[in-house]
């Protein structure tokens, strides 16, 4: 399987703190790769380093054949990477429509694609002209997702999308991710909910203390409770 994104020996410092220690893993093209690990393992830092929001102090990040670790964040985004941050980061002073207009950066929004997104997230149609700041947490997450989907992206980086959301909304997000994957997108997803990871993940990398300590298939990890316990500190039952 060709890898769309490859990290090798990535080190990241934030101020005086050394957060990532030689992170290395690959994200196979057309697959959903889960990035798992305890809190503070370095998952969010890894995504932010890929996006160029924090600079890698050394190491190599490749999108296809292209090295991107020294590129600016806008150039990385324009290379085809969509980013859904943990904080959702919707523009609360802007309406739902205006948030999506900005996300469709190279022109008008494609109506067919918009209808496809509305199919997963009907509240976005309903609150089309409402300010994003007035949306509920779940609706903001839908908007954050929609923003990354409004145009085709080669790779989606998604950071803990299900955190604090109601089960019905998590279900819709999972359906959406499955459909996006079916359409050929590659996804790197940080997730704490093992059930969700198990349902949509093809590959998995597990991080601990700023290092990748395990890479393999999601199915193999899901089948090995002892490995889960060793890597994640919890059994599958307690993740549910």
């Amino acid at each position, binding site marked *: 399987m060709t890898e769309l994104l490859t990290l090798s020996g990535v080190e990241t410092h934030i101020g005086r703190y050394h957060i990532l220690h030689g992170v290395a893993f690959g994200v196979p093209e057309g697959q959903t790769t889960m990035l798992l690990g305890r809190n503070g393992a370095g998952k969010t830092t890894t995504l932010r380093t890929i996006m160029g929001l924090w600079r890698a102090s050394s190491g190599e990040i490749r999108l296809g054949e292209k090295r991107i670790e020294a590129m600016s964040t806008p150039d990385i985004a324009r290379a085809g990477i969509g980013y859904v941050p943990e904080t959702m*980061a919707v523009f609360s002073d802007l309406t739902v429509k205006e948030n999506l207009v*900005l996300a469709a950066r190279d022109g008008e929004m494609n109506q067919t694609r918009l209808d496809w997104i509305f199919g997963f997230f*009907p509240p976005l149609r*309903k609150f089309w002209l*409402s300010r994003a700041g007035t949306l509920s947490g779940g609706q903001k997450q839908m908007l954050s997702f929609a923003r990354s989907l409004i145009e085709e992206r080669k790779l989606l980086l998604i950071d803990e999308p299900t955190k604090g959301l109601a089960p*019905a*909304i998590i*279900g819709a997000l999972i359906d959406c991710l499955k459909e996006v994957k079916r359409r050929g997108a590659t996804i790197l997803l940080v997730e704490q909910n093992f059930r969700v990871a198990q349902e949509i993940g093809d590959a998995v990398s597990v991080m601990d203390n700023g290092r990748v300590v395990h890479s393999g298939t999601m199915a193999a990890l899901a089948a090995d409770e002892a490995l889960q316990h060793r890597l994640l500190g919890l059994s599958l039952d307690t993740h549910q």
Partner: protein
Amino acid sequence: MSVTDTDVGAALPKMRADYLPLLLPVALALVALPFIPSGSTWVTLTIAGLAMGMMIFVMASGLTLIFGLMDVLNFGHGAFIAIGAYMAALVLVPLGGWMQADSVWLNLAAVIPAVALAVGVTGLLGLAFERIVIAPVYGQHLKQILITMGGMIVAEQILYVFFGPQQIPLPLPATLRGSFMIGEAAVEKYRVVCVVVGLVVFLAMLLVLNRTKIGLLIRAGVENTEMVEALGYRITRLFVGVFMAGSALAGLGGVMWGLYREQVNAAMGGELLVLVFIVVIIGGLGSVTGCFIGAILVALATNYIGFLLPKLALVTDILLMVAVLLWRPRGLYPVTSR
């Protein structure tokens, strides 16, 4: 599975339209009315206050965007006000004959190039200032204060070198001299022009911010610059553009103020800077509407208090700022959470 409306709590909480700050200038004017001996004096003071408010708004609007979007404390903003006024003087002094002619067209033929030069030069200097002075200190507030304050002192001294320490007279065009009479109230023509220019600038800014993609980017950038970059937009270009526009507006404000005072001097930028900062803080960082209301409030309060209690006029701005911040600690219409 898709999410139904009920899954997410169908209705949004109704957004309460916040009209209260908009009513403040009206309330202030009405409160002042019974204390002022005659209606005509009240009208004169009110229109003079509105005109002064519009001039302050034009000068401060650029600073609030720079503050809100770029998180830059630009104490050099006053320099652009003074430079704008001097650039106008460069054109208007030699064209004094046209300015004094009793012809609208000759007056315009002098004023339009003067405004164009002031706006153009301050815009370009804004570009240079952002690239050379501001860019190295993004995110470092203490250094920003020091370096922009230093920049203003240097600019002021350069103006002294080129134009000398004396005040330069900047007479009003002949057709803008004198007053209209509304009943018994005398309303200076130039003040009406200032109100119109201020309203045009305000409406243009609202139009750009709300109806164009650049405006959306600025509003989004004020909230979260990082996410704007993650969507693929080069925020640095936006910063440069906003800084240029903000500096050019300061230049325009300088021309308006210079003509209002009928003289320019190198220290005028520094003198106005405190007032401009007070307006930006009262309005709420990054808010153009807040800045507009704040400027009118400050100017009206200064005029009314100056007339009724002249000794108190010196501290009116500060007292008003304290009152507003006690009521709304982040200003009238805060945009950024910084």
